[in-house]
């Protein structure tokens, strides 16, 4: 079973260098997206309630009232 998976990976991705390199760069792109999104989520979770986007509604509502 492991051997078939390994040979499938080898035949599919590694055998041709162009495919190998392309998959590395595609993986880098996907990894970067996932890493950025994930680290932003972690940051927002740690700083919940302290960022401008969390408290913005309290002030923006007041401003609208002032305008009216």
């Amino acid at each position, binding site marked *: 079973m492991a051997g078939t998976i*390994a040979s499938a990976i080898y035949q599919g991705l*590694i055998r041709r260098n162009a495919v190998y390199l392309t998959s*590395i*760069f595609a*993986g*880098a792109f996907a990894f970067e997206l996932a*890493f950025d999104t994930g680290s932003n989520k972690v940051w927002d979770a740690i700083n919940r309630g302290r960022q401008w986007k969390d408290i913005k509604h309290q002030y923006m509502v007041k401003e609208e009232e002032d305008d009216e």
Partner: protein
Amino acid sequence: MSLSSASSSLLRVCARQQLPTTSRAAVASCQQRRGVSEASKSSSFQSPFGSSEEYSSTLKIPNFSKYSSKKSPRSNQVFSYFMAGSLGLASAVGAKATVQDFLVNMSASADVLAQAKVEIGLAAIPEGKNVIIKWRGKPVFIRHRTADEIKEAEDFDWKGLRDPQPDQDRVQKAEWLVMLGVCTHLGCVPIGEAGDYGGWFCPCHGSHYDISGRIRKGPAPLNLEVPQYSFPDEDSLVIG
């Protein structure tokens, strides 16, 4: 123990013998003596590679099966390639982030970008009036030109000017003239509605600009510069 002492004494003898005799003879005698001594020695030490006395044991190969992988060669190969590819992936992401950080560092910051554009309501500017606003630290002249002034600017034979430029190249809408208020001579701020041509006059060295901001008289080499601007709707103007 016996081997080491025997070989060291042998070496000592060889070294001594090399002095009086010729070198070739000494080496030959050393080899001869060595063969004799090795044949005569009886050691309990068992070399893993066998010894020259037993011919069959020269082919004795140590058993490395303990270290060999139980997986198939292909999966080991895939593992190696995966690790190399992961390293490539990580370095690609790192290189991209590094380059991007440098480039972002070089680009304009948010406060600069916020000042880069200025929006002006045009309804407040009556016809025939100048407005001077500050944009990127420089004055900008906005003139709401009257129909007479537009006609004067357009009908003038601009081909004979120092910096020949037709009026339609300098305005987007004929009634709105937008220019940087910096004299092209030495950078003074010209005075509006002054000078011999009804446009601008630079008090520093006496440059006269006409109602289209073109240089007509005096030391300035070029017409007043026209910044990038646009009219998002009828009543507003965005410079920048």
